[in-house]
């Protein structure tokens, strides 16, 4: 086995042989390898954040007609490293009356919850933390740990704005978990397995072509789960003075910051894995290294859309956010689950083309019907009068008499 075909396996075998050569029993060598692998994966993911923060600042800067970071290094690429140096030297400020345990546990837990997601994602055909056959359930379970970090940070800070943010966080995250779980069922159903590597291997057709509406719902809901704009009510600066992490400073704030950016990238990675075929691509099975390149290209596209959304959409109000979830996304995701399951049984599976076209047609039909229903609902919605119907505008006398008559009757 050559190094360039599959460097991960190559290094793994080399390290295992080295450890056994040093006289370590085989199962102890396995344990050591587990720890080394976890350490390497976690470190790689955290180092990636250094780049992600720079990228996001640069892209958002360009969207807002600014230059973004441009002083440290070429294109300001070392800006984040300078920021890390600054944040490391900052003082830890612990406010009076905080719950010491919760206050310090929350940042660690928030980063840990994101890193734990990386354990099950197959980066190439052979490179994954563990090929868990209940990986989809695992993703949901680990997501709940992230929720707990937000709750603990809000409660432990001894600050009313932080607690308010924590209440919002719970309402938002637990509500959006319902459509998240329902949409996750579809890839599981298509692949016939809950393991992520099996799901990737089953995608000879990317699942986004079989279930475009569900993919869209998953995308929206996962942004809400991460708490990124336009769903960033957890850390709304304007009404909660930065929300659950208000009392954190220095490196502890940095933990939340890193978790936020890494989480956004991780959901892009998950989307690429579940709906865009993961590491699949020409030659990815013979040369697993290529699979990593394909996965990163797909993830970058999704991540770029996440950044674009963040830069272009205003924040939801809390009632709008709840309405969107309970009145639109949850019923829609359940409808799509039932319809897709039925159609999947009805359509002949042998000509792949027929199956794809059938699914796409069904999805487009659902979208059209949904559009009509939304129009009806929108027309019936009572609109509060915030301004007089007739605006005071200077008009010529003969026309204004006609228009005033119609204006008062309405």
């Amino acid at each position, binding site marked *: 086995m050559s190094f360039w075909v599959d460097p991960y396996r190559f290094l793994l075998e080399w390290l295992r042989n080295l450890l056994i050569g040093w006289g370590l029993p085989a*199962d102890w060598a396995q344990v050591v390898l587990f720890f080394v692998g976890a350490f390497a994966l976690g470190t790689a993911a955290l180092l990636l954040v250094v780049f992600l923060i720079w990228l996001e600042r640069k892209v958002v800067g360009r969207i807002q007609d600014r230059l973004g970071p441009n002083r440290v290094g070429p294109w300001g690429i070392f800006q984040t490293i300078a920021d890390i140096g600054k944040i490391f030297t900052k003082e830890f400020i612990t406010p009076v009356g905080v719950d010491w345990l919760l206050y310090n546990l929350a940042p660690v837990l928030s980063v840990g919850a994101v890193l734990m997601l990386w354990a099950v994602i197959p980066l190439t055909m052979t490179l994954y933390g563990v090929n868990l056959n209940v990986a989809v359930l695992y993703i949901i379970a680990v997501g709940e740990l992230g929720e707990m970090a937000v709750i603990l940070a809000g409660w432990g800070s001894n600050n009313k704005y932080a607690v308010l943010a924590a209440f919002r966080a719970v309402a938002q995250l637990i509500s959006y978990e319902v459509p998240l779980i329902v949409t996750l069922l579809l890839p599981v159903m298509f692949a016939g397995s809950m393991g992520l590597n099996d799901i990737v291997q089953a995608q000879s057709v990317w699942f986004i072509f079989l279930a475009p509406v569900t993919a869209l719902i998953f995308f929206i809901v996962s942004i809400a789960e991460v708490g990124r704009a336009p769903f960033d009510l957890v850390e709304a600066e304007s009404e909660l003075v930065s929300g659950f992490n208000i009392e954190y400073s220095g490196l502890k704030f940095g933990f939340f910051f890193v978790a936020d950016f890494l989480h956004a990238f991780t959901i892009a990675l998950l989307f690429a894995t579940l709906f865009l075929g993961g590491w699949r691509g020409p030659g990815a099975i013979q040369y697993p290294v290529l699979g990593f390149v394909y996965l990163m290209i797909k993830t970058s596209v999704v991540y770029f859309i996440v950044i674009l959304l963040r830069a272009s959409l205003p924040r939801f109000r809390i009632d709008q956010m709840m309405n969107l979830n309970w009145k639109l996304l949850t019923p829609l995701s359940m409808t799509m689950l039932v319809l897709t399951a039925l159609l999947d049984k009805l359509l002949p599976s042998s000509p792949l083309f027929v199956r794809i076209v059938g699914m796409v047609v069904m999805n487009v039909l659902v979208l059209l019907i949904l559009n009509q229903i939304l129009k009806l609902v929108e027309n019936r919605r009572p609109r509060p009068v915030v301004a007089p119907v007739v605006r005071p505008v200077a008009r010529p006398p003969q026309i204004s008499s006609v228009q005033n008559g119609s204006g008062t009757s309405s």
Partner: protein
Amino acid sequence: MSGTQFIFLVTAGVTLAAAVMTVSARKMMHAALWLVLALTGVAVLFALLRSSFFAVVQVLVYIGAIAILIIFSVMLTRRVVQEQRPRVNRLWWVAALLALMLFTGLVATLASWNGLYPTGQAVAGHPEDIGALGLALVDPAGFVIPFEVASLLLLAALVGAVFIALERKGGMQ
């Protein structure tokens, strides 16, 4: 001692210590967190037994649902629920003595029982056959009736919760 045994011992120690801390912590919130740690320890034990389904369900149900519910109900109480008095009363040594005697008696009785020691004979089948579990839940010869009855119970609870919430809203109007 193999690597797995070492991890098992560490996990078991942490789980037991967390369980003790759950009942002895002064703050309600801390007790809830120690409970989370103890339940996580149990999940790790499941994972060590190569039963990742149970490990994940343990995290999902006990930590994701129940622990968050407990933490949330503690948060909704008006003050920090905190006990200032000593955690044991003056008869603690009697309780400890009784517990020790019961434990010794149980160990002595069980030590003479043959069923305590595994006789070989592992359970047939792959421990991780979720497909079999899923089929058993919807199989008429399996557990379809308990499964459906449980769903009905949950549905009734859901309807009841909605009803209570709606009635209060109507009363205010």
